[in-house]
């Protein structure tokens, strides 16, 4: 009998469901957290997620691209949930957060290496305004003991490391994604700030005082690619991911995701370190790449 598949969209969220008799598979996309980056579209093994550029109303800032999930392709595997740097997608089974691909080691957990050095936390921290561009850090003093506490919402953190600057010594963050970003300003259209408009990380992109063009700052960039999606000129903005910090794994699904998120070269490099000879040979056959 026909499977009940549901798709609902509100201003704040997009929800997909398979309603079976005793199982309820659900994918929720939090539109407020989604920045319209490329990561989920590249990570999805079924190519079920697409991005749609949003038309700009004249005189307004550029709008972030809108993600859409194809209900006929989605299989609720949860890879987008794991891969989203902003933690905007959640996949659940019967209301409980469920990621069988992690359990069965078909996909690695991404490492968000975020540590708070409690010994360095002091009352001065309370004076720091906006320690996190996404508002994931709360600093408060406990009324009873007067002790200052720094709390981080790690689940939604893309590891931009801005807090290391704002709270020196207190925050220790290692980037989840590494890579390179380069804006060839000579190719940028006059007065175009589209990339900056959509960048969720304050300080990752900024306008140069000299030529009023957007420059990148590798220090805080999380290499999510939200800027790349909206850039009107193909070659003006170069973005490359070279490494993704993740738990060790042997999985074909991960190899493919890694190849799409980085490049065949980076992927084969990783295969080499893991000694995955068979997988390396298949890459060699497919794209003619040899990494030794």
């Amino acid at each position, binding site marked *: *009998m026909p499977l009940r598949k549901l798709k609902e969209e509100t201003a704040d969220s997009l929800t997909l469901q398979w309603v*079976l*008799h005793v199982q309820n598979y659900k994918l929720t996309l939090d539109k407020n957290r989604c920045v319209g980056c490329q990561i989920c579209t590249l990570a999805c*093994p079924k190519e079920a997620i697409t991005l749609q550029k949003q038309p700009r109303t004249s005189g307004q800032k550029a709008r972030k691209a809108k993600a859409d999930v194809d209900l006929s392709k989605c299989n609720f595997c949860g890879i987008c949930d794991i891969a989203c740097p902003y933690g905007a997608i959640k996949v659940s089974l019967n209301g409980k957060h469920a990621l069988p691909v992690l359990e*069965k080691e*078909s996909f690695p957990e991404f490492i968000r290496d975020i540590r708070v050095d409690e010994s360095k936390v002091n009352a001065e921290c309370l004076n720091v305004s906006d320690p996190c561009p996404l508002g994931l850090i709360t600093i408060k003093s406990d009324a009873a003991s007067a002790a200052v506490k720094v709390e981080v919402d790690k689940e939604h953190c893309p590891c931009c490391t801005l807090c290391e600057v704002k709270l020196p010594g207190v925050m220790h963050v290692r980037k989840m994604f590494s890579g390179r970003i380069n804006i060839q300003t000579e190719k940028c259209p006059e007065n175009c700030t589209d990339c900056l408009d959509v960048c969720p990380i304050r300080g990752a992109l900024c306008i140069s005082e000299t030529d009023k063009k957007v420059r990148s700052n590798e220090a805080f960039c999380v290499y999510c690619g939200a800027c790349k999606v909206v850039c009107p000129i193909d070659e003006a903005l170069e973005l490359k991911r070279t490494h993704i910090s993740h738990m060790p794994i*042997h999985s074909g699904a991960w190899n493919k995701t890694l190849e799409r998120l980085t490049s065949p070269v980076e992927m084969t490099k990783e295969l080499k370190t893991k000694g995955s000879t068979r997988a390396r040979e298949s890459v060699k056959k497919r794209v003619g790449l040899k990494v030794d």
Partner: protein
Amino acid sequence: MPRKPVQKKAMSSQRKTRKQHKGPRIGVFICQCGTKISSVINVDELTEYAKKLPNVVYAENMNYPCSSQGQDEIVASIKKNKLDRVVVAGCSPRLYEPTFQRCVSKANLNPWLFEMANIREFSSYCHKAKPEEATQKAKDTVRMSVAKARLLEPLSPVELPVTKNVMVVGGGIAGISAALDLADMGFKVYMVEKTETIGGYMALLDKTFPTLDCSICIEGPKMVDVGRHPNIEIISYADIMKVDGYVGNFRARIRKNPRYVIAEKCTGCGECRDACPIEYPNYADMNLGVRKAISPPFGQAVPLTHTINRDYCIECYKCIDACGARQAINFDQKPEEVEVDVGAIIVSIGYDMYNPQDLEWTGYGKYLNVFTALEFERLILAAGPTGGKVVRASDGQKPHSVAFVQCVGSRDINKYEYCSSFCCMYTLKHAVMLKEKYRDAIDVYVFYNDMRSNFKGYEEFFNRAQKNGVKFIRVKLEDRRITEDPATGNLTVSAETEDGRPVSAQVEMAVLANAAIPHHTAHELAEILKIPLNKDGFFVECQPKIRPTDTEVPGIFLAGACQGLKDIPYSVAHGSAAAAQAAAVLNRGTWVVEPLVAKVNEDLCSGCRICESACGYNAISVAKVGDKDLAKVVEGLCRGCGICSSACPMDAITMPNYSDKQIVAQVQAAVEKVEKA
């Protein structure tokens, strides 16, 4: 291509027709058929008339020439009067021509020197009120037959070799029963199954009526027997692409769809399934439950070869790791085509269940607690998605009242006019199971119109349901409605009794007895095999009473619900019947075809191919013989319709005993001026 038929002079022992300078000696035997002919037609007058016809040397009327006594009389008369042509005026040649052909050959006369005149269906039956005219018409008919008989020529039958293999299409219980019977008789059986496993619907049921046996417990061993039988080869997850040939010499091309698992290497251990992270809705659970992206549809599947559903697989290759040294998984597997040569084909493709979503009054698909019967079956099944707990979809709670609604889609002239035949019984089964499990904790209502509990042990089962306190409410099939209280998910089933009073019941769950409908591949297979479907879409048997397993195509037989809906015991019996029919073909060694097939005169044939396009059975084709293009007839396929013969511009094709000369003689006899009787 099918094997070349060998034409033998089988009748060579028969004496050649005596050439007589006076022309043929014709005997006419007129049947009284009890009084079915003689009460209308003046048979004595007809006999006297026949005697006067040219070349008729003997005529008599007799009661039942078809009886053994009547046949003996004909044989004696042929010998006594030295007859060399025989005309029997009686009923339709469809019924008795073979009988009389055997009869004349007993008198050492070639069986094709016999002609039948139908004076029953064509005269006495249809002109009862006008006996004089009927007699006159009978005279005309006899005169025409005699005119043709004068020109009849002796013929020899065509013998075709028979391949002793058989293909069973569809592995439900009917196909299983046919396959096992044939395999036990020693024939090689190819069982072609579209889905991943044999077993059909029976493998999905919890219990069977009226005995409440566990369905898979009684079918499972049979499935295993099929899987292990040395004479049976299961070709599962496969489609039939093409079937060529004719009785005794069919060649089927079958496409095996890729499972991405190598059947020979897979042991069915299930380690890959345990390693797989992906789940998807299981059609075997009516989408109520899930299965892994690499899995069999259910545990007792035969073959147990797992299948990867690439629509859902994320290609993490964890299954390859789990499979390890067995190396049974191959993501590069491609569809594979195989050809099998078989002498006979049994079609047992079963049926589909109607999706009642488009019947708005049922609320199916809209209200969560409305189920179809097969969905309910999976709920009550211990190995089902809920572990045998009957629970509602809206809140996961056990219902305290259940209504069964009969005839959903069936017996509905706007949907399916026929009765689906087994719904009454499975509803009784479900009702009894609920009542005997939960006793007074559950109210069970059955909204029915007619309770069809014929056949052995079924009426008693109906009584058992009544004794168990199931409430039967007889209602009209029109104006039934199911409505939902959105707050609780509870349902109200309302209807009207036969005498026009409204009735309704508040229930927590409703189960629809939805129609069983022809299988979705029936049309395609009918095209491939060139066998007809009836208006509902079920295959048509050759004769509804006495040949319920034959099709119009010799060598192709029907088994189970694809011929007409049947429950399990009748599907099993029908399967065995089809097996016996197929064995009768396979056992012969050779298949004799009537010699009434087209004959090509090679001197006249120009190879123009007009006959090729005219033939509806692909029985005639043009090929190079030496340096000349010549039409050639495949005798096994030719039905003797004569279209090629009339289409041929060179007059190169003749139909034996339907030659132009013979037909013209008959027509002339028909229009000849005759004296009024």
